[in-house]
């Protein structure tokens, strides 16, 4: 599935999005993060502290314990700082 990154997650991972093969049994964003940190040391570092991560499923804010399906658009980013 396609996973999108914004702000310092994007710049530190050096990519705005990537295709991720979601392992069987992974159904929540926390489960997805458990998988992402295995992809590279860079991923492990960026996703190490989940308290500073925010997420959206299909462009709606979602808690990390939210469930998703492989056709959803998932995004991770830091707390927003607009306005």
């Amino acid at each position, binding site marked *: 599935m396609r996973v999108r990154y914004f702000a310092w997650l994007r710049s530190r991972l050096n990519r705005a999005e990537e295709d991720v093969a979601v392992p069987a049994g992974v159904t929540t964003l926390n489960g997805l993060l458990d998988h992402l940190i295995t992809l590279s040391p860079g991923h492990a570092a960026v996703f190490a502290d989940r308290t500073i991560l925010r997420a959206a499923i299909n462009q709606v804010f979602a808690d990390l314990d939210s469930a998703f399906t492989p056709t959803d658009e998932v995004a991770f980013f830091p707390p927003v700082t*607009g306005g």
Partner: protein
Amino acid sequence: MSGSIASRVQAEPFEPGAELARFTKAAPGAGAIVSFTGLVRGEDHAGRALTAMTLEHYPGMTEAQVHAMTEEAARRWSLLSVLVIHRFGRLEAGAPIVFVATASPHRRAAFEAADFLMDWLKTKAPFWKLEEGAEGAEWVAAKAEDDQAAARWR
């Protein structure tokens, strides 16, 4: 009850005065109009000189979130009209970033709705600020006080 609910998420600059003039003309029956303009300050969060900033956003989600906020504000305060403009991309120091205008028969509703919209824009719209100073670019951290401000409206 609501006349016009409008929101724009755009790269182009805008003029707060021209926006307020247009908004005022399009709000017949209003007794009170409040506007808020947020601008790029000439210094960063640590007080160092700032030349510009870049606002990253989440295309699609941003527009939906911002529009939902204007509808929420119009619903909570029975506004005659409401407008939100938020820029993204690169902005020079002094440039307007965000503009909120609210029109209501009475002043309390207009003030509260504008205040609410700014608190929600700060905490619920997917924008991220990258400040450019003499020492390079730095992502701005979210402020706990913004979360506390937004929590007033639950």
